[in-house]
């Protein structure tokens, strides 16, 4: 019997949620970080980490497909017992919460820096949390539809990034492999955070309408993310001079500041406001997943109460503590280490475990 029958999501929604989670955190700072590590060769690092992530994601799907009707927690309960499942639920809930927290606080920092410098963080947090609750309190299908909507209304953004290209200096990309492979591997490591978030497949998988599409789904969503990252990074690399790009915190935004229209000043404000939709995909699905994990552990079908608790923790928490940019960066670095454990190491171990068990 299908446990999650009422909330099935289509392949498109699956792709949108997954890409959305990946594309948000770290997108704005990505080109600068790649440049720090590997200069204008950083984009090769993106390709490397893309291959790596696709493989890791396929492993997750492979593991999930051995128990297609349930989430990761159901799978672990089935194979390893009840307590393992519960512990996994707690850990995953914490992981998704942390992921969403890093995303939402970074968004607040961006809003404060570029849009509302004098509005308090608490107010911005509340403003972001209200739509978060209204979307996330419903089932996964609504979250999926929201992700789809965000995807379609964001389709015009790449075109605006073609405008700065008239000042581009393509020679900056040459020579390829300036200093050998070592800096590129180091850039790949820094790009890892941007590609993390695929762990959400562990919760999404049982909701997917046709399980056979999961392999295609993860491959497509990772490729979409890779293409967006690649395009944005290349544009920043050819627009800024190689040493200048390291001076900016968010080169992705600065690149737009130079577009001049007669009818609007500070075009980047429009973009940052619009990016809020995209960024929201880094916390809405993850908070939803986190609440889902908690309610699963408590054995209750309704995930709204845990979601309300998360909501209150976030709202009250901002009054007490709000990370600065440096602290947020540090959290991001932890997150990418934790993500490596959850999304790469554990699935591989599980895959080996499942194989040995079958034999």
């Amino acid at each position, binding site marked *: 019997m299908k446990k999650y029958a009422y909330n099935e999501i289509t392949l498109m929604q699956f792709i949108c949620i997954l890409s959305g989670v990946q594309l948000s955190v770290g997108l704005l700072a990505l080109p600068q970080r790649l440049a720090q590590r590997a200069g204008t060769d950083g984009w090769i690092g993106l390709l490397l980490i893309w291959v790596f992530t696709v493989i890791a994601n396929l492993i997750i799907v492979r593991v999930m497909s051995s128990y297609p009707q349930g989430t990761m927690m159901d799978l672990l309960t089935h194979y390893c017992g009840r307590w393992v499942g519960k512990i996994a639920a707690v850990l995953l809930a914490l992981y998704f919460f942390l992921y969403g927290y890093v995303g939402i606080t970074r968004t607040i920092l961006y809003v404060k*820096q*570029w849009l*509302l*410098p*004098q*509005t308090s963080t608490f*107010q911005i947090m*509340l*403003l972001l949390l*209200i739509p978060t609750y209204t979307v996330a309190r419903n089932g996964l299908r609504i979250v999926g539809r929201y992700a789809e909507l965000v995807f379609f209304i964001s389709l015009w953004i790449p075109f605006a990034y073609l405008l700065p290209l008239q*000042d581009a*200096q393509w*020679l*900056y*990309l*040459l*020579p390829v492999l*300036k200093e050998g492979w070592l800096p590129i591997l180091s850039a790949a490591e820094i790009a890892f955070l941007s590609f993390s978030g695929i762990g959400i497949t562990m919760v999404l998988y049982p909701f997917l309408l046709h399980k056979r599409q999961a392999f295609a789904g993860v491959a497509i969503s990772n490729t979409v993310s890779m293409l967006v990252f690649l395009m944005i990074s290349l544009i920043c690399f050819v627009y*800024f*001079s190689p*040493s*200048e790009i390291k*001076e900016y915190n968010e080169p992705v935004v*600065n690149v737009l*500041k*130079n577009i*001049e229209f007669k009818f609007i*000043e*500070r075009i*980047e404000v429009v973009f940052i406001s619009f990016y809020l939709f995209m960024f929201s995909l880094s916390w809405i699905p993850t908070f939803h997943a986190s609440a889902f994990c908690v309610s699963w552990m408590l054995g209750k079908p309704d995930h709204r109460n845990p979601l309300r608790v998360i909501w209150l923790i976030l709202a009250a928490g901002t009054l007490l503590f709000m990370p600065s940019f440096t602290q947020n960066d540090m959290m991001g670095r932890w997150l990418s280490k934790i993500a490596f454990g959850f999304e790469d190491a554990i699935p591989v171990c599980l895959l080996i475990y499942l194989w040995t068990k079958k034999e």
Partner: protein
Amino acid sequence: MSKCWLHVFIAISVLLISGCNDRLDLEDAAFPLLGGYDLDEKNNLLTYVTVPEFSKSARKKTQELGVRAKTLQQARQQSDAYWPAVFQGRKMLVILVSKRLLAHVDWFRILDVFSRDAKNPLTCRMIMYDGPLSEVIYLNQQDQPFLPLLLRGMVDTKSGRSETVKTTFQDMHRLRFEKGKTPSIAEIRLENEIKLNGTALLDHQGKYADSLDAQETILLQILQNQAKHAVSLTLAIPGQAKRGPLNTDKLSFSTNKAKTHIKTAFHDGHFQFDLAVHLSIALTERLFPYDMHHKSTVLEKAIAEQLKKQFEGLIGKIQSHQIDPIGLGIHAQAFTYKPYKKVEDQWGRALSEANIHLSVTVTIEGVGTIK
């Protein structure tokens, strides 16, 4: 019941959360359109602003103000004191700097507030004035558009014909960190009226090095491959007789296509650049009689010869000042990475020792409507 609480909650949030507590009414804001930066005799920073005046009772449409301050933020504070409004840098169109300021290394650092404060624009045009800025700022010509608009218009239209360069704050910022190319900005002078003089070349530290006139600026931009289509050049063709006081040996043309191929190599400790310039031109003016029908290739060669001389003069100027406005360093970095990295920090000197070969080919595509 829960619906009711929800409504109460929404009402409270709406009251508490308003995103407008940092708004600014237009009446309380002053928007300087031009910022001018200069040094006085004791090398104190002088800051000038030109602000449009909207008040009905004001007889003049603009207000100018100059203050002495250590930094631009401080200058803003001091200028605020003269107005019933607060300063907003976000409408700035033009940044005017004096040659005196440009004589100092790293003067660009004082403009840090433009790149750091997200509210400030990055597209203001950089212009150099040769003399004390107070002369231009307080000029107040009656029969011309007011200064910021005049200057911006000058730079935008003339750079459209490649007769000057449109260097925005962002371009300057980019070149400040670029070792393989030195900045060049528009230059104005005052000869009774404000006059766009061409281009000022700066060195790697941003110091003023030399000036180019309109024709040289066009040549520079042809070498940079940035010449807009249809630039117009005038040359003297030797061997044509001058008649009386009129220079009837002159010939003008506009380009249909201007393309420069740059080949980069490194031999025996020297960089070598081969610049192949190709121009397709249409004659617009010829002050001497000429048999175009039979001898047009001879004329093409003569034009190429004259252009080559002018290009070589320009390159000589560049090399003698140890600067690189063409951006050959970027080519050197792309194609000869290892040797470039070694001399990157003294690129100007390395370029002055480099061998630069130049070849010019010209094709005449049109001679106009008369023979």
